[in-house]
C-alpha cells in the first residue's frame, strides 16, 4: 500500500508539467491533494508494527519494505501536514514565476522521497529515497538556473549530500555484511553482533557522515545557507522543516542499533555543539532575511544532534519535542521572510523595519513564530527549551553543564533573531517608509500558510499536555530509546525550577543583546570549511588539467614508449613474483650452434635496425627494413617452413615496392624530436627487445606439446583430402579465420577508397601545404 502511494506520488510528480497546462496557477492547490491524502491515510491507519515487504532484488536480499512505527508515523504526519500548506503557499508564490511545472515536479518528487525515508524499513530502499531527496533538492536550489550563484549552490549541495550519501552507502553495506540483512528491525534485533566487531567504528563513522552532510552539521554546514538560492517555499519546506531533518531522522532511526556506541555519541555531541554555536553566532551577523534563518536552522539541528548524543532518556525526549517546535516556527518564519521579500522587493533586514501596518497578517504570523522561537510560554518552543534545559540539569555531568552553557548561549541568540523578526520587523502600529507605498499585504494564498504554521506551534504548546498528543510524542521518543517514553512531559507549568529560571534569564539576556548588538553584516568566516570546499574544487580542477597535460602530450612516440615500458614492467613483475620459468644461466649454458651463413643472417638484422635508427632518408629506411624481412624469410626456410617464407618474401617485396612508390610524394623528412631525446627511446627499445628475447628463449627452452600437430598431420590427408597441411588448415580446419581475414582486407580496401575519394569538408584543403607532423 505504501509502495503504491509512493509510486503514484512519483507519477503525479512526473505529470505535473502537463497538469500545469490544465490547472495553470492553481497547480499547487490541485497537487496539495496528494500530501493531504497521504496525511489522511496515515491518520486512518494509525501507527503499527506491521511491515509491508515487496521483493526488489532477490539475489541481494533487498526489499522495498515499509513500516508505520511511532517514529516514522509521526514524522510522516509532520511532513505531510507541512507539505499540504507548503503546496498551497507555493501555488500562489510560483504564479509569479515561469516554470511552475518543473518546480512542482521536483517538489512532489521531494515530498515522495521524504515520505519514503521516514517510512522505509529496508536500509537500501531508505538510501534510494535519501538520494532522491538530494537530487530533487538539487533541482529546486537550481531553479533559477540562469544565475551563476544558483547553479553553484545547487552543485554544492549535490556534491556534499550525494558525496555524504556515498559514505552512508558504504556504511550500510558494511552493516549488512555484519548483520546479514538490510532490514532495520533485523539490525536492531542483532545489534549484539556489532558490539566489539572490528567494523563497528567504520559503520558508525560512515553512517554519521551521511546524517551530518544531510543535516548540515559541522564541518558540512556551509551548503545550507547557500541553498537559500531556492524559491522560498523550498527553503521553508526542504531546508528547515524536512529534508535537513532527514539526517536527524536517520540518527534517531539507527539509535537503537548504534546508540550504545561511544564514537556515535561523542561525534554527535562534539559536532552538534560546534554546529550549534557556529550557526547561532552567524545568524546575528547576517542581514539577508533567509540567511539569518538558515543559520538558526543549522544551529537548531546542532542542538538536536547534540542532545541525541547526550543520550539520556530525558535528553532524547527533549530533542524530539524541540524538533517539532523548530519545524513549526522555522517554517513560519521562512514564509514570512518570503512574503516580506516579495512585497518589499528587498531582502536586507536593515532596510525593513516596521512593516506591521503594511502586512498585518504576515506580521501576526511572524510574531507568533518568533515568540515560539524565543521560547515564550505557552508556545511549543517554550516546552522544547524547558525540556532541553531540564535534561541537561538532570544529567548533571560536567559535559552536560558545558552543553547547558552552550545551549543557553544559542538560545539567547535565538531570542535576538526572534526579536528582530517581531519587534523590529513588525513593531505594532509601525509604518514602513523606505519602500513604495503599494507594497501592501500579499494575497490570502501567501498569508494562510504562515498563519497556519504559527498557530500550529501555539496550539501544540497549549494542548501538549492532553493525553493523546503527549502519548504520541512520547511513543516516538520511546522508539528511539524505550526509557525516553516516560520522560516526555508536555505540561506547561512545573513549578519554579532551574529550567524555568534559566529560560527567563535567556529571555532577558536575549533582549539585552537585541538592544545592544548592532545589525551588521560580517561575512568573515569563523571556520574555513566552506573555503576548504572551494579549495578542494579548484585544486581538483587544477590537478585535472595538470594531469591531463602530463598524460596526453599529443606525441605518439611518448605513448608508444610508455606502452612498451608498461609491458616490460609487467613482465618484470611476473618474473619477480612467480619466479623464472627456468634459471637464465641454465638456458644459456647450452648456446645453440649456428652455421656461419646463419650467423650472417642473424647479425644482419640488428645492423639493419641500427641503420634505420640513424638514417635520415626514408628510402634507406624502407630498404633496410626490407633486409630485416628478407632475413626473417631465410630463417623460416631454414626451419622448414618454405611456404611461410614465400609468403613473407612476397609481402616484403610488395611492401618495399609500394613504399618506394609513395615515398617520393611525401614532403622532406624532418626530425621533430629534440636532438638527444632519441636516447630515451633508444633505451626503451633496447629494454623492450631484451624483455621479448628473454620471454622467447624461456618459451623455446620447453618442449611444445604436440597434440594438434599429430592430429593435423593425419587428418588433413585422410579427412581434409589435401596433401599440404598448411593449406588444409587455412581453408578447412580453420576456414573461419581465413574468411575473417578476407573480410578484413575488404574493409581495409573500402577504407582506403573512402579516404582517397572523400574530400575533407573542413580543414585539410586549407592546410594541405603545411607539413604533417
Amino acid at each position, binding site marked *: 500500500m505504501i509502495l503504491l502511494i509512493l509510486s503514484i506520488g512519483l507519477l503525479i510528480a512526473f505529470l505535473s508539467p502537463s497538469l500545469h497546462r490544465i490547472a495553470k496557477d492553481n497547480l499547487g492547490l490541485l497537487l496539495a491533494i496528494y500530501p493531504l491524502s497521504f496525511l489522511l491515510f496515515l491518520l486512518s491507519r494509525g501507527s503499527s508494527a506491521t511491515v509491508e515487504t515487496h*521483493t*526488489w*532484488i532477490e*539475489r541481494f536480499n533487498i526489499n522495498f519494505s515499509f513500516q508505520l512505527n511511532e517514529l516514522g508515523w509521526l514524522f510522516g504526519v509532520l511532513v505531510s501536514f507541512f507539505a499540504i500548506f507548503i503546496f498551497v503557499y507555493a501555488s500562489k508564490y510560483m504564479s509569479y514565476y515561469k516554470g511552475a511545472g518543473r518546480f512542482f515536479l521536483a517538489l512532489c518528487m521531494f515530498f515522495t522521497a521524504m515520505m519514503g525515508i521516514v517510512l522505509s524499513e529496508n536500509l537500501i530502499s531508505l538510501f534510494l529515497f535519501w538520494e532522491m531527496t538530494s537530487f530533487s533538492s538539487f533541482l529546486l536550489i537550481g531553479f533559477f*538556473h*540562469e544565475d*551563476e550563484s544558483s*547553479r553553484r549552490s545547487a552543485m554544492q549541495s549535490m*556534491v556534499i549530500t550525494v*558525496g555524504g550519501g*556515498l559514505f552512508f*552507502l558504504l556504511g550500510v*553495506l*558494511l552493516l*549488512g*555484511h555484519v548483520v546479514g540483512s538490510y532490514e532495520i528491525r533485523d539490525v536492531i534485533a542483532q545489534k549484539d553482533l556489532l558490539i566489539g566487531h572490528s567494523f563497528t567504528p567504520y559503520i558508525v563513522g560512515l553512517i554519521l557522515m551521511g546524517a551530518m552532510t544531510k543535516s548540515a552539521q559541522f564541518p558540512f554546514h556551509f551548503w545550507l545557507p547557500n541553498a537559500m538560492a531556492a524559491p522560498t517555499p523550498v527553503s521553508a519546506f526542504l531546508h528547515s522543516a524536512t529534508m535537513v531533518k532527514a539526517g536527524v531522522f536517520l540518527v534517531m532511526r539507527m539509535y537503537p542499533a548504534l546508540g550504545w556506541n561511544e564514537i556515535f555519541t561523542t561525534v554527535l555531541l562534539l559536532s552538534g555543539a560546534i554546529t550549534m554555536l557556529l550557526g547561532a553566532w552567524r545568524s546575528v551577523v547576517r542581514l539577508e532575511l533567509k540567511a539569518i534563518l538558515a543559520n538558526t536552522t543549522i544551529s537548531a539541528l546542532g542542538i538536536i544532534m547534540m542532545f541525541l548524543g547526550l543520550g539520556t532518556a530525558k535528553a532524547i525526549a527533549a530533542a524530539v519535542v524541540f524538533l517539532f517546535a523548530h519545524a513549526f516556527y522555522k517554517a513560519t518564519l521562512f514564509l514570512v521572510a518570503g512574503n516580506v521579500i516579495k512585497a518589499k522587493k528587498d531582502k536586507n533586514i536593515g532596510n525593513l523595519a516596521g512593516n506591521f501596518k503594511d502586512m498585518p497578517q504576515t506580521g501576526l504570523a511572524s510574531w507568533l513564530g518568533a515568540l515560539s522561537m524565543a521560547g515564550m510560554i505557552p508556545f511549543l518552543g517554550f516546552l522544547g527549551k524547558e525540556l532541553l534545559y531540564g535534561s541537561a540539569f538532570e544529567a548533571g555531568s560536567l559535559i552536560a553543564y558545558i552543553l547547558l552553557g552552550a545551549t543557553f548561549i544559542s538560545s539567547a541568540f535565538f531570542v535576538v533573531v526572534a526579536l528582530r523578526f517581531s519587534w523590529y520587523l513588525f513593531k505594532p502600529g509601525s509604518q514602513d517608509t523606505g519602500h513604495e507605498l503599494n507594497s501592501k499585504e500579499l494575497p490570502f494564498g501567501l498569508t494562510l500558510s504562515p498563519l497556519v504554521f504559527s498557530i500550529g506551534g501555539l496550539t501544540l504548546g497549549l494542548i501538549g499536555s492532553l493525553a493523546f498528543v503527549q502519548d504520541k510524542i512520547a511513543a516516538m521518543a520511546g522508539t528511539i530509546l524505550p526509557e525516553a517514553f516516560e520522560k516526555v512531559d508536555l505540561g506547561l507549568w512545573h513549578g519554579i525550577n532551574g529550567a524555568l529560571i534559566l529560560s527567563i534569564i535567556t529571555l532577558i539576556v536575549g533582549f539585552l543583546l537585541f538592544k545592544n548588538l548592532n545589525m551588521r553584516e560580517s561575512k568573515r568566516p569563523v571556520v574555513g570549511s566552506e573555503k576548504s570546499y572551494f579549495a578542494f574544487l579548484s585544486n581538483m580542477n587544477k590537478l*585535472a588539467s595538470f*594531469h591531463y597535460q602530463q*598524460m*596526453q602530450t599529443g606525441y605518439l612516440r611518448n*605513448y*608508444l614508449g*610508455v*606502452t612498451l615500458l*608498461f*609491458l616490460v614492467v*609487467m*613482465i618484470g613483475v*611476473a*618474473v619477480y613474483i*612467480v619466479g623464472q*620459468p*627456468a634459471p637464465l644461466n641454465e638456458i644459456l649454458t647450452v648456446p645453440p650452434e649456428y652455421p656461419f651463413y646463419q650467423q650472417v643472417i642473424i647479425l644482419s638484422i640488428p645492423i639493419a635496425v641500427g641503420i634505420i635508427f640513424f638514417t635520415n632518408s626514408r628510402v634507406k629506411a624502407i630498404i633496410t627494413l626490407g633486409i630485416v624481412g628478407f632475413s626473417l624469410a631465410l630463417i623460416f626456410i631454414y626451419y622448414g617452413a618454405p611456404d611461410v617464407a614465400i609468403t613473407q618474401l612476397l609481402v616484403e617485396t610488395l611492401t618495399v615496392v609500394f613504399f618506394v612508390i609513395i615515398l617520393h610524394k611525401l614532403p622532406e623528412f624532418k626530425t621533430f624530436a629534440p636532438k638527444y631525446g632519441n636516447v630515451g627511446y633508444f633505451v626503451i627499445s633496447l629494454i623492450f627487445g631484451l624483455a621479448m628475447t628473454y*620471454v622467447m628463449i*624461456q*618459451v*623455446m627452452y*620447453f618442449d*611444445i*606439446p604436440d*597434440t*594438434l600437430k599429430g592430429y593435423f598431420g593425419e587428418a588433413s590427408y585422410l579427412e581434409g583430402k589435401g596433401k599440404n597441411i598448411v593449406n588444409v588448415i587455412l581453408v*578447412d*580446419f*580453420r576456414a*573461419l*579465420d581465413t574468411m*575473417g581475414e578476407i*573480410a*578484413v582486407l575488404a*574493409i*581495409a580496401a*573500402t*577504407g582506403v577508397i*573512402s*579516404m582517397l575519394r*572523400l*574530400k*575533407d569538408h573542413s580543414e*585539410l584543403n586549407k592546410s594541405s601545404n603545411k607539413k604533417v607532423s
Partner: protein
Amino acid sequence: MKENLIIGALLSPFVAGIIGLLPNISVQWQKRVSLLGTISMMIFSSLLVIEVDKVGVLSFQAGGWEAPYGISIVADRLSALMVLVTSIIAFPALILGFESVHKDRKVAKFFPIFMFLILGISGSFLTGDVFNLFVWFEIMLISSFVLLVMGNSKKQVKGTIKYLAINVLSSTLFLVGIGVLYGIAGSVNMAHLALVLPEIEPKGLVALSAVFFFVAFGIKAAIFPVYFWLPSSYHTPSTAATTIIGALLTKVGIYTMLRFFSLMYYDQISWMQQIVFVIAAFTMISGGLGALAQTNVKKLFSFSIISQIGYMVMGVFIGTAAAFGAVIYFLVHNILVKGALFIITGIVGEHTRNFDLKKGGGIAKTYPLLAVFYLIVGLSLVGIPPLSGFWGKFGLLSAGIITEQYWIISIALAVSVLTILYFLKVWNEYFWKAPKVTKTKRPLPYKFVISGSAIVLSVILIAVFADPIINYCVQAGEDLFNKNLYIKSVLGDVEISI
C-alpha cells in the same frame, strides 16, 4: 539446432555488411539493409539469451572439426548477453547515423562498415578459440579505423594515427601472447586450454603468457597507463561512430579479460591481484580527472569511459563468482549508459553544432526533453538508485567487502565524487547555463528523437527489470566461476580435474 541462433546473430550484420559493400547500391538501400540487419540480429540474440538461460551453454564447431582441433563457437550466458546488448546499442546509434552522418561519408560506405564493426564485436564475444578471437579483433579494429578516419579531417587523421599505431601494437602483443600460449600449451582452444593450463609447469611460463594477454587487452580496454589512444581519437569522428566505438570497443577488452582470467588464467589472479588493483585505481582516478579537465563534451565522456573501465578491471580481479556477476551487470549498464551519453550529448552537439561546453548552454530551456534524458542517464552513471549504475556499484562493492579488499573499494567509492563533479559540470554548462548567444530554436529531427528515446528507454528498462537481469548476471558469473559447463559443452564429457 538451437545453435543456429548463434549463426543467425553473426550472419545478420555480416550479410547486411556484404550487401552494403556491393557496387551501385544506393545509400538509401545501405541504410535499409543495415537497419534490417540490426533488427534481425536483435531478434536472434534475444532468442539466444532466452535459450542459453535454459540450457546454460550452446556451442558448435565451425566446419564440424571437433574440438580442440577446429574452431569452437560458444555462447554461454555472458556471451549471449553481450551480443544482445551490442545489438541494442547498435540500433539507436544507427538511427542517429541516418540523420547525422555527413552525406559524403554515407556514400563512402559508412553503414556497411558499421555493420562489420558490429560483426567483429559479436564474433569476439562468441568465439571459443584464442586465435579466432584475434581474427574477430582484426575485423573490429579495421572497421573502427575506417569509421574513425572517414571524413578525412585533419584532426581525425591525427587521432586515427595514434589509435592505429597503439592498437596495432596491442594486436601484436596479443599475437605474441597466442604464440607463447601455443608454445607452452600446444592448443588455442579456450576450453581445452582451461583444462591444460593449470597443469603446466613451470608456473612462470604461464604467468608470462598471461602478462601478454593482460597488457594487450588492457590496451584495448584503455587502462592506465596505456589509454592514450582513446582520448586522442574518440571525439573526432561523427557522433554515430563515436557512440558505437565508445560504448563497445573498450568493453570488448574487458570481456576478453574476464573470459581469459576466469576460464583459462584463473590461478594467475592471485599473484596479479594487488598489482592490477593499483592499475585499476589509477585508471579510475586518471579517467575521472581527465574528464574533469575537458571542455569538449565528447572528449569528456571519452575520459569517463576510462574511469569506468577501472571499476570493471577491479571486479575481474576480485575474482569471485559474485564479482564476475557484478562485472557482467556493470558491463551491460556501462555499454548502454555510455552509449546513451554519447547519443544525447551528440544530439545536442550535432543539432546546435557545438560540442564545446564553454560556448554551449540553455538546452534545458530550449530542448527540455534532452535535459530529462541527460538527467536520467547521467544519474545512472553516477549510480543513484534505482538506476542501473547503483546496482553495478552495489555488486562490486559488496563483492569487495566479502573478499576484504577494502582499500580498492574505498577508492572506487571516492572516485564517484569525481563522477558527480563532471556529471554536474556538463549539466551546468550545457543545460542550465544561459547561452551566450541565443539561437532560434529548431525542432529536433524525428530520427534524433527516436534514437534518444530508444536508448534512454533501454537505460530505464534495465533499472526497472533489475531483478531478473541481476539474477541472470549473477548466474552468468557463477557459470564463469565454475567453468565446467563451458568446458563440457565444447569438449564433451572429458575428464575434468579441476
